[in-house]
């Protein structure tokens, strides 16, 4: 079933539906979430892939930080323009990886104008508070302790859906639409997105936000009470991302 290294380890039939390689992937559905998973362990890659797919995410799994950057087009500025249509809604990465650690990958993503808004979740088998804090300070959305469980991924999925809907004004952008919001004053795009966060929107009902307002709205928690009616979250999901290691479920006796 699985091959070593490279991009993903899905069976052929599954690879078609996920659009492996990214370049020729069909446009993503409005509600579909695309996750990039990064882990050097084959076993862990298979498990995280399955966990994500079972929670209705499309998954691209790679075995290193370098391949992740390659896939995103961050390491090659010429390619990134073309790959703008690649919508990645979440990046989930292992911390301990040879070559480039998950932390280093996180930093590179946060330095990238195209991808810095994509939430990054770090996974680690070690519960080291300084490590967790460092990642969160660097902008990681959440920190999961391995082994990752279905409940962890479901929780991620819940607050991810809210993020996607909120930042796009309740409608997920399809490839070909204007690129993810950046801080530049002249954001290109054939039609202004319905969100009031666009500085160029001439059709929005509220006045365009200044760059300072855009920055602060981006930094504030995306979870807004007013948006509860569009949430698909389950009742037990927490209102904001867990900032510390989650509570461990009791093990078997």
């Amino acid at each position: 079933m699985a091959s070593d290294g490279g991009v993903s380890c899905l069976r052929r039939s599954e690879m078609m539906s996920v659009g492996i390689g990214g370049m020729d992937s069909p446009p993503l559905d409005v509600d579909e979430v695309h996750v990039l998973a990064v882990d050097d362990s084959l076993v862990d890659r298979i498990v995280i892939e399955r966990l994500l797919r079972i929670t209705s995410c499309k998954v691209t799994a790679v075995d290193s930080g370098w391949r992740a950057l390659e896939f995103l087009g961050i390491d090659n500025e010429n390619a990134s323009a073309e790959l703008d249509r690649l919508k990645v809604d979440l990046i989930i990465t292992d911390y301990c990886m040879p070559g480039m650690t998950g932390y280093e990958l996180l930093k590179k993503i946060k330095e990238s104008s195209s991808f810095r808004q994509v939430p990054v979740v770090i996974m680690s088998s070690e519960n080291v508070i300084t490590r967790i804090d460092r990642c969160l300070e660097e902008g990681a959305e959440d920190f999961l302790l391995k082994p990752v469980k279905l409940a962890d991924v479901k929780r991620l999925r819940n607050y991810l859906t809210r993020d996607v809907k909120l930042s796009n004004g309740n409608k997920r952008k399809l490839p070909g639409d204007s690129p993810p919001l950046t801080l530049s004053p002249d954001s290109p795009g054939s039609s202004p997105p319905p969100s009031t966060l666009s500085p160029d929107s001439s059709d929005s009902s509220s006045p365009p936000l200044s760059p300072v307002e855009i920055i602060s709205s981006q930094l504030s928690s995306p979870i807004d009470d007013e948006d509860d009616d569009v949430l698909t979250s389950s009742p037990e999901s927490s209102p904001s991302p867990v900032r510390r290691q989650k509570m461990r479920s009791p093990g078997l006796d």
Partner: protein
Amino acid sequence: MDTLVAQLQRQFRDYTISLYHQGFLDDQFTELKKLQDECSPDFVAEVVSLFFEDCEKLIGNMARALDQTGNVDFSLVGSSVHQLKGSSSSVGAKRVKGLCVTFKECCDSQNFEGCVRCLQQVDIEYKSLKAKLQDLFNLEQQIVQAGGRIPQVDI
């Protein structure tokens, strides 16, 4: 009257419970079972199979590193142990994972004899688990072939 299916299901249930109670498996194995469904009916078997291949490869690396008499690279052994600990944790291979913890300590303290002992134990342990899980999967197959459903076992 006890049908063949009922007998097999009971065997399966008892065997599964014993694997957990004897510490071979932990709740992460249960988590993996949750990921198995009609679309991916062999998911658990496939993952554990990959895990056992991983074991073989990593144990081979460790053995080679420990074989460099007088010039053992303990950090190299330690990194393989770390990887093995990770994957054993991900599939719920509790005993293997536990041995890796001890093994890692031996690597960190550069305890050669300790490492060699741990290596032998890990090798025995993963092979033992492999055989037991094979028996479990065989039972599953027999149940299905006899026309029955694989029971959900609550630990």
